[in-house]
């Protein structure tokens, strides 16, 4: 009886430890290889386009509607105690500090993290990773460094975009739909907002970019078992990265404020 309960718990703990270990070992290897030549500039730009430019529509739509719904909800709530003048501040603060980094990161994880894991996983099962090594090329350097760099670099930029788009969405709802005075709302957006609110969101974004890209690389790299294995790796990359992002978000928030 006790064994039946303890065994699955033990398995989960073991897998958790294994996954965490692999994450940090891979992170170490990526840091080890990133300053070393040769630098493949073309590959770096390709990945930046993939993570950054190609994710703009997704982040745009996500943050536009988030800003809109946030404004709507805040207005309805705050109207109950005559505090609608605070709606702008609440929208901006929530977006910058929390919603823009987290939601953008989750969307980009789904879009790019999954495709990275699938791509690297299928390279693994078709021996392309072995072929890289056989050609005296370290896969960590050639494949992972550009992907992780692009993610750490582009996530903050996407979040800046998300902040702006979300605020525009919030403004649109508050002013055009709910009839708030445009001047008042515009000013209230920046009341109570500090630089640190903005920078903490940016720092979060960079960390989330690191998390999803390294998780995707690890899951892809350790793929076994053909097409089915690739599917499994892809799913697990998205699940593990998303949960880790939410978990780390809490601790980062504690740390940054």
């Amino acid at each position, binding site marked *: 009886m006790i064994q039946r309960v303890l065994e699955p718990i033990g398995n989960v703990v073991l897998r958790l430890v294994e996954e965490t270990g692999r994450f940090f070992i891979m992170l170490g290897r990526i840091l080890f290889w990133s300053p070393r030549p*040769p630098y493949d500039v073309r590959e770096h730009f390709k990945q930046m386009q993939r993570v950054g430019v190609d994710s703009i529509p997704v982040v745009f739509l996500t943050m536009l509607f988030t800003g809109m719904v946030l404004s709507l909800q805040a207005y309805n709530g705050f109207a109950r105690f005559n505090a609608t003048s605070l709606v702008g501040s609440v929208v901006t603060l929530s977006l910058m500090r929390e919603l823009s980094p987290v939601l953008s990161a989750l969307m980009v994880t789904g879009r790019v993290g999954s495709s990275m894991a699938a791509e690297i996983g299928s*390279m693994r099962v*078709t*021996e*392309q990773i*072995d*072929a890289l*090594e*056989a*050609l*005296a*090329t*370290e896969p960590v350097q050639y494949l992972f460094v550009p992907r992780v760099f692009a993610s750490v670099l582009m996530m903050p930029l996407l979040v800046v975009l998300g902040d702006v788009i979300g605020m525009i969405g919030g403004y649109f709802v508050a002013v055009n739909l709910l009839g708030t005075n445009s001047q008042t709302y515009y000013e209230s957006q920046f009341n109570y907002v500090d630089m640190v609110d903005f920078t903490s969101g940016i720092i979060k974004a960079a960390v989330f970019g690191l998390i999803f890209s390294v998780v995707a690389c690890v899951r892809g790299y350790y793929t076994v078992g053909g097409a089915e294995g690739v599917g499994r790796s892809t799913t697990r990359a998205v699940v593990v990265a998303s949960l880790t992002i939410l978990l780390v978000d809490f601790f980062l928030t504690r740390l940054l404020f």
Partner: protein
Amino acid sequence: MSRETGQAYPVSSEAKIRVEDLHKSFGQNVVLDGIDLSVATGEALVVVGPSGTGKSVLLKHLIGLLQPDSGRVLVDGQDLWAMDHLQRVDFRKKFGMSFQEGALFDSMTVYDNIAFPLRRSGKKPAQVRERVEECLELVQLPDIASKRPSELSGGMRRRVGFARAIAHKPEILLFDEPNTGLDPIMTDTIAEVILGIRRQLRATIVTITHHIPSARKIGDRLALLSGGHILFQGTPDEFVKSPDPAVRQFVEGRATGPLTGEIQTLHRNYGEAR
């Protein structure tokens, strides 16, 4: 063990690759159980054996893609796993390896695939172009440089894999099942291409196959790998004429025999009888 000498290809007496008591298991599954093997400089060794007997695992040990559980692999007298990581990555420049299904980078064109090792080692675009064309010529595939791997047939993909493996003029070439799953004509074409590569590069070659006619054509020496052991080594003629029951079963392609039964026991008995 003897070797044909006085061939068209110069074979030195010194060992380019030496495998010493190599053991490898994956979990409970013992794949290589004490392999001793040596390949002379300029020699072409063909390792034959039934599917799933660890031929590819052996090949991946030669280039250091897998780490032995115990035993050593020495290339030019140097143990790959005694080096640090950076040295090992660099040391692999001595090697060219072609994989079972080609393992071409499917995000790149044929040209970029073959150019890959050249660009990585900092060759100029003009040199790269010249060498890529040379390599495509050598594998008898001109005019496909702009195609994608997905547009190629199995035989073409293998040969592009060869071209990529030889682009940087390696000293050692490893061919993993170069002609498995191809039609008989393409199978022979592949063997011819390997011979052509050998003529041009004068490299040490280790090929893995289970196609006996190709093995005889390509190899100076054949080794039979089964059950984690090298059961027989000899020239192609010695191999096909050998009375060894394991060799006989493989050459004649019978379903029953020492390779599919209790290999070790039968082979040991045969060895004692001999």
